[in-house]
């Protein structure tokens, strides 16, 4: 009898605690409702792509030497380099260059290996088109520069989470001059240099300190 | 003939047509699933007849019990064992059909005779409408108490039987050679219904 009652008591306790957890969960959900939406209202707001964003590839026809390194490092040999050998000058003459962005995976190998830096990655990612053949960019299309999100008057640029100042989650009402959390690479380099010089100073002074310690002993 | 009477008549005719054709279809249709669904339709039509008789509580109970419980149970059973297999041809099916048809026809004629020869007390007792619920309760707990209690005991027995059948935790045979022995031992081994382990 007592065992049965104990069981009932345990069961009730479990039920009550389950109900408590449920109410806790409801509280969490309810609390989320008063928070500001974290979504980006895309066509009207856009995130500013980061510095190393790997978007559509930009290509400068005049810099290219038609060495085909980009083709060789590409995982699927995608770039098409159309050149002819000019027998008189014994130089390659570039006619056309194209990359099919329908097949490109934006790995950036070609950009990495280009000896003349004629390839670079842009921040453009809106490549949608009605026809997959129009994704095959020729050297003219590749040479176009994308409009920057920050300079587009119809778009409200938003900073990504990592580019917000410390403690701020919402990029909406942020003045443009606010600095991001953490240090910029240039700052880090500067600090490193400063540290180094200080260390050298310390090394100089450390010769003195042990002497002092020794003397107290 | 006023509007109320004619609507009642039309409703009655439609409902009876549904009941008669539906029940015939339940019996005669080859597809057992159709039969089951049509049975639900017939039950609902019967509930409609009760409604026409101003017995709304009985109608609702009819829907709740027959449509909501019995028919759904039948459907469940059909859908869980819905194997499409050809039945073996039964010997002398025609004579069997003839005999059962004869019995049913005889019953129908008997019933018709009874319904014609009986002097119905027309118009019948006035319907009590909404009070019916209370009246049913009164009857169930006074002069029909014994059948009521017996029915509940029967239901309890059925429920306990179902639990006993469902709770038998026999391990599934693995198809070994020793299986024959195991089977025997399983049958001989009595599994207590409410042992300490089974309560946990």
């Amino acid at each position, binding site marked *: 009898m007592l065992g049965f009652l104990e069981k009932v008591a345990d069961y009730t306790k479990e039920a009550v605690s389950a109900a408590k957890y449920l109410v806790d969960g409801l509280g*969490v959900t309810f609390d989320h409702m008063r928070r500001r939406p974290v*979504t980006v209202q895309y066509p009207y707001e856009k995130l500013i792509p980061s510095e190393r964003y790997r978007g559509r590839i930009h290509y400068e026809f005049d810099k290219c030497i038609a060495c085909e390194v980009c083709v060789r490092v590409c995982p699927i040999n995608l770039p098409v380099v159309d050149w002819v050998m000019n027998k008189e000058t014994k130089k390659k003459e570039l006619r056309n260059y194209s990359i099919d962005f329908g097949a490109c995976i934006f790995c950036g190998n070609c950009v990495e290996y280009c000896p003349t830096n004629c390839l670079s990655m842009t921040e453009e990612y809106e490549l949608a088109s009605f026809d997959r053949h129009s994704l095959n960019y020729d050297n003219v299309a590749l040479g176009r520069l994308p409009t920057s999100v920050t300079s587009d008057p119809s778009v409200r640029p938003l900073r990504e989470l990592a580019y917000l100042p410390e403690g701020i989650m919402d990029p909406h009402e942020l003045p443009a001059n606010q600095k991001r959390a953490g240090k910029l690479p240039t700052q880090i380099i500067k600090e490193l240099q400063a540290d180094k010089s200080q260390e050298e100073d310390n090394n100089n002074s450390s010769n003195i300190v042990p002497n002092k310690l020794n003397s107290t002993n | 003939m006023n509007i109320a009477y004619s609507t009642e008549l039309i409703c009655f005719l439609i409902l009876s047509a549904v009941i008669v054709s539906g029940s015939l279809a339940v019996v005669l249709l080859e597809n057992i699933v159709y039969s089951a*669904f049509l049975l639900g339709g017939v039950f609902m039509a019967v509930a409609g007849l009760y409604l026409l008789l101003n017995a*709304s509580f009985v109608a*609702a*109970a009819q829907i709740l019990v027959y*449509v909501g419980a019995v028919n759904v149970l039948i*459907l469940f059973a059909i*859908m869980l064992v819905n194997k499409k297999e050809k039945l073996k041809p039964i010997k002398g099916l025609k004579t069997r059909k003839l005999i059962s048809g004869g019995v049913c026809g005889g019953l129908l004629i008997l019933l018709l005779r009874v319904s014609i020869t009986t002097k119905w007390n027309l118009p019948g007792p006035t319907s009590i409408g909404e009070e019916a*619920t209370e009246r049913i309760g009164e009857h169930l707990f006074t002069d029909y108490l014994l059948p009521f209690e017996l029915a509940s005991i029967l239901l309890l027995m059925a429920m306990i039987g179902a639990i006993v059948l469902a709770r038998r935790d026999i391990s599934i045979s693995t198809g070994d050679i020793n299986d024959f022995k195991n089977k025997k031992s399983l049958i001989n081994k009595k599994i207590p219904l409410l042992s300490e382990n089974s309560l946990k």
Partner: protein
Amino acid sequence: MNSGIDLEMSFTQGVQNLGLSHELAHLLWIPLPMLLVLVSAVIGVLVTVWLERKISAAAQQRIGPEYAGALGILQPMADGLKLLVKEDIIPARADSVLFTVGPILVLVPVILSWLIVPFGQNLLISNVGIGIFLWIALSSIQPIGLLMSGYSSNNKYSLLGGLRAAAQSISYEIPLALAVLAIVMMSNSLSTVDIVEQQNTAGFLSWNIWRQPVGFVIFWICALAECERLPFDLPEAEEELVAGYQTEYAGMKFALFYLAGYINLVLSALLVSVLYLGGWGFPISIDWFSSLIGLSIDNPLVQIIAASIGIVMTILKAYLLVFLAILLRWTTPRVRIDQLLDLGWKFLLPISLVNLLVTASLKLAFPITFGG
């Protein structure tokens, strides 16, 4: 007790004054409430769908529909329109008759149940004596429609979903009915109007929720299970069963399921507010309030104000519960089928039986507070 506004009486009298017979007037009256129910049910669904999308968005820190009308208020309308003009597909190997009848059998009982939802003293379609019992009976038809559509789709997911739905609604019908029974025992009537009236003697203190807190919880859980709302949406568990019995449906037939689901949710919320939260009753007694101003309760102005307050109160309470349901949707994970049946048979059923017993004994012990 005052009779309040009686629209049917005044309508039939008005028509009779035009020179028509009483029966004809009644016949003219009949389609009006039907139309009203259909329209109000559909509007209720539209509002609920909008609320669901907006509240879900808020709970997930999104914005939700925004551009179809102000704050996306026309989005459900656009959804409905889309479903209306979509191609109506019947799978080739499906059973076309059962496939078509299934969704109808799911929707019709739900709409029929609106018969008994009172928005005021006489503001309901019909004050049936068996009131709440009618709802329980009607909602037991639904599983047949679900089984029908599950079977006829000729799809294993559909069949599994249909079977699950039927099993779920059968097992949760019982604690639901027992919870209702406790209420009925206290108010001595099955009629929803009587149930509400018995709660409105002393403002919100006399609501049934104080006398039946356990019953309230049981009823709400069971109502959520009957509506297949999220903690119990196993029949259409999209990760396991694609969409359950709705998998093969498209266009208007799918819309019927969709409608039935949301109408059922609104209906359940309305019935919770009727059974436990005092229905159309204002938290402060209207009688007391009108006597405070010095107006007779039979004053037409007071009557109209009271009726509109009643409607607003009923809808407000119902939508509060809808809000709770949506919040629960994003809080609780889906239960497994064994957990669902465990909860139904091993938790809710015994508890509701105990609740019934306790209510009965309390009724015998304190006949004044628990309905003599």
